[in-house]
């Protein structure tokens, strides 16, 4: 029983990480039709900026409130990079899918190379607040606090995004734009501002995933964004393009499946099962769990 609880909660921690990356990816694709392969870069920037801030930024540090400041700096850095990418590289290429893919793939490769050139290719030890090094006993299972932190962060981000989508004017524009972008412009709305906004939201969530994921794993490395991005894309497709709630359900399914199969089967079998799940969903429900509509 302890093992089941432990696997469930660590699986949910993994799901939280996937959700933080996938939520922005899903909104960006749903609204702007952009397959953003550079999304992992926002995660890397968030992780490295947090790591750098913890050691160098006045007021920031590796524990307590200083660590909160470091994470806030990392999230801000990820958000800024996402906004810049949208304004400078993506905006001139809307409706030009192939060029977008080439630019975002190129940017993701260049971003990793830049991080490597600056801080080296090897993984670096990430500052971990004391509490995150400990475990919490949940019904007899010792669950790492880093995983619980990810779950809490993902639930808060999910709540914040849904509140934003449901109750704000821009949220309304995004929900409508996911359904029919052209009609939004035909109502007199400059939908490009909403594009920038979803990139900012996505960048912030991915950067938070980078910071908290690095706390969980204990290290930061240039390529970690890319490997997480593959599973985030799978989550987006299973959840339904443009649906944040769908991404949340899909992330839970993928995280739990991966964790349980990897434990009870052989290591790596969980990843194969996730791809199998993707294939089944595409065959039975090609639009994913929640389809194209952004739900609030």
């Amino acid at each position, binding site marked *: 029983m302890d093992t089941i609880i432990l696997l469930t909660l660590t699986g949910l921690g993994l799901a939280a990480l996937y959700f933080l990356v996938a939520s922005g990816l899903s909104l960006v694709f749903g609204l702007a039709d952009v397959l953003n392969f550079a999304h992992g870069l926002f995660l890397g920037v968030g992780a490295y900026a947090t790591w750098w801030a913890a050691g160098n930024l006045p007021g920031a540090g590796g524990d307590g409130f200083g660590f909160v400041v470091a994470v806030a700096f990392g999230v801000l850095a990820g958000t800024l990079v996402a906004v810049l990418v949208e304004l400078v590289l993506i905006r001139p290429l809307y409706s030009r899918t192939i060029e977008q893919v080439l630019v975002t793939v190129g940017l993701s490769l260049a971003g990793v190379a830049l991080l490597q050139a600056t801080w080296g290719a090897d993984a670096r030890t990430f500052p971990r607040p004391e509490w995150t090094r400990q475990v919490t006993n949940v019904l007899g299972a010792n669950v790492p606090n880093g995983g619980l932190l990810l779950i809490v962060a993902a639930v808060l981000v999910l709540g914040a995004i849904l509140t934003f989508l449901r109750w704000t004017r821009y949220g309304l524009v995004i929900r409508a734009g996911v*359904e029919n972008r052209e009609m939004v412009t*035909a109502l007199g709305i400059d939908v490009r501002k909403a594009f920038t906004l979803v990139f900012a939201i996505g960048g912030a969530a991915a950067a938070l995933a980078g910071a908290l994921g690095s706390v969980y794993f204990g290290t930061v490395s240039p390529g970690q964004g890319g490997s997480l991005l593959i599973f985030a894309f799978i989550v987006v497709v299973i959840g339904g393009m443009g649906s944040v709630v769908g991404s949340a359900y899909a992330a839970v399914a993928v995280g739990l499946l991966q964790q349980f199969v990897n434990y009870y089967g052989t290591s790596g079998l969980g990843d194969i099962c996730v791809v199998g799940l993707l294939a089944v969903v595409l065959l039975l429900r090609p639009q994913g769990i929640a389809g194209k509509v952004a739900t609030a």
Partner: protein
Amino acid sequence: MTEPVLSVADLSVRISGLHILQGVSFTVAPTGVTVLLGRNGVGKTTTLRAIVGLTPRAGEVHGTIRMGAQSLLARPTHRLVRGGLGYVPEDRCVFAGLTVAENLRLAERRGTTPAYDRVYALFPELDRRGRQRAGSLSGGQQQMLAIGRVLLNDNRLLLIDEPTKGLAPKVVTEVAEVLERVAESVPVLLVEQNLAVVRRLARDAVVLAAGKVAWTGDAQELLLETGLTKSLLGVGSAEVHH
């Protein structure tokens, strides 16, 4: 002579190699309904979409489109709409996942007071169904919502594309009644296949054939000329008067 509200001159649209419009020229009077007629596929919807700046990126648009002194070509759609060009597309295009109230709220323009009184006076049902998802409305109700969205703001010209398409006869009459009242306060460029509706609403007509203007003039005169309606629109007098 009164200045037209819209002037289209030598408009050509080419999309994916197809030369859909080939030098189309016409004007829209500053009052009443001007109807754009023609058989299926002659470029009526393409004309409206070119006016409102919704030609696909892969398409090429040449010519002149002016609303008053202002040139409309190459201006982004949202600016044209904010400048007073209301557009009701074919197939309504309501946001199915949003409620009726949210669909209307989306059409509100910053810096102006939305005319909910006007919309709810014309369509009381929209007020009653404010919390209902637009996707669950009937076709007629969706059309009312689509028209209601543009009437929330003051417009200089309305472009309305096939508002009665696919509707039951009773609903067609209701929509025609509404458009008749709307046209009392704002000029309308209407694409419509239902000639009974055209007969009721239209003052002027522009007939397109194979991407060119084949006839312009008084709409009622056109409908009286059985030979013309048969040759231009492919319908006889029975269908006109039905």
